């Protein structure tokens, strides 16, 4: 047997494209968020409330990732911001190359905040750097308080956690303290926002925190 020793990261190609994306974002002065969660936890609603908050104040753009349809892009287009839909045709996550391709159809001129909504999936997207400044994970109360323990990878790689649908707490089997505690055991540095996209609770706090990261 002869042995070739290489030590190469399996996802090095993705990481290389992500680095290019990151460079491009920083040249344009755009702060980029990669929004991840399981399906149905309310990523698109978080985007909508965020767009409302910044309307007329800060220029935003959105990249939507879904397995099929441009339904989410249609929802976002109502807010008159540049939006591109990536349809992965079965792919369970976004990759840096898909984002790079999407950027050819997205005018980043003057955009201070680019929100990328990943495919709803708490496993695969954690492996793929897109070139974002930070990952933000959304977990809704209806999913239960054990999500961070079941899907630690995603919480480990995120900078912030949005606990969504807090208006449903009286009706679902979920303790806010347990959910928060579980997430912080995985990643003590997580910024945690308690939110309801129905009542708008927590939205201003989240948006003001985002605002702190935007370039002037």
């Amino acid at each position, binding site marked *: *047997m002869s*042995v070739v020793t290489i030590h190469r990261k*399996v*996802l090095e190609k993705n990481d290389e494209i992500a680095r290019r994306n990151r460079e491009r974002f920083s040249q344009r002065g755009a702060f980029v968020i990669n929004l991840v969660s399981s399906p149905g936890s309310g990523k698109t609603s978080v985007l909508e409330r965020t767009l409302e908050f910044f309307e007329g104040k800060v220029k935003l753009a959105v990249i939507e990732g879904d397995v099929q349809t441009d339904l989410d892009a249609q929802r976002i287009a109502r807010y008159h911001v540049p939006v591109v839909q990536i349809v992965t045709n079965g792919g369970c996550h976004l990759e840096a190359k898909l984002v790079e391709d999407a950027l050819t159809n997205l005018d980043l001129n003057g955009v201070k905040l680019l929100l990328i909504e990943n495919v709803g999936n708490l496993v695969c997207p954690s*492996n793929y750097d897109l070139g974002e400044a930070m990952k933000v994970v959304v977990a809704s109360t209806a999913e239960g308080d054990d999500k961070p323990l079941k899907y630690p990878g995603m919480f480990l790689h995120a900078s912030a956690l949005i606990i969504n649908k807090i208006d449903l707490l009286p009706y679902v089997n979920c303790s806010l303290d347990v959910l928060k505690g579980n997430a912080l055991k*995985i990643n*003590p540095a997580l910024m945690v926002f308690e939110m309801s996209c129905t009542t708008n609770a927590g939205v201003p706090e989240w948006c003001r925190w985002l605002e702190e990261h935007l370039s002037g």
Partner: protein
Amino acid sequence: MHELSIAQSILDIVRQSVPEKELPDVRIVKLQVGDLAGVVPDSLEFSFTVLTTDTPLRNAKLQIDHVPFVILCNACEKTFTNEVGFVLCPTCGGADTKILSGLELQVVEIELEDIKAEAP
């Protein structure tokens, strides 16, 4: 199920590292996979087999070395391992910890059958 695209990335690396005519000699592709890398070994092996059948890499098998999730507590100056990805120190409860391993996903070695060595 992103193991198929990960298997594809592994094959790309093998093809870049071994001359084309030697691809049928590749027997083992050795990987390091951290326990918190978010990869299912069985799915990865299955995907690898699907992608290599009837190709020059048909003789290649994946060998996956698991890397445990290990944290170092700076306060206690001790290392701890767990399977769930907790980064809080289990002794002092502190958050001043560092992840030492468990997130790896890399190709470390490719073993080829040495045809010349077997010749008389």
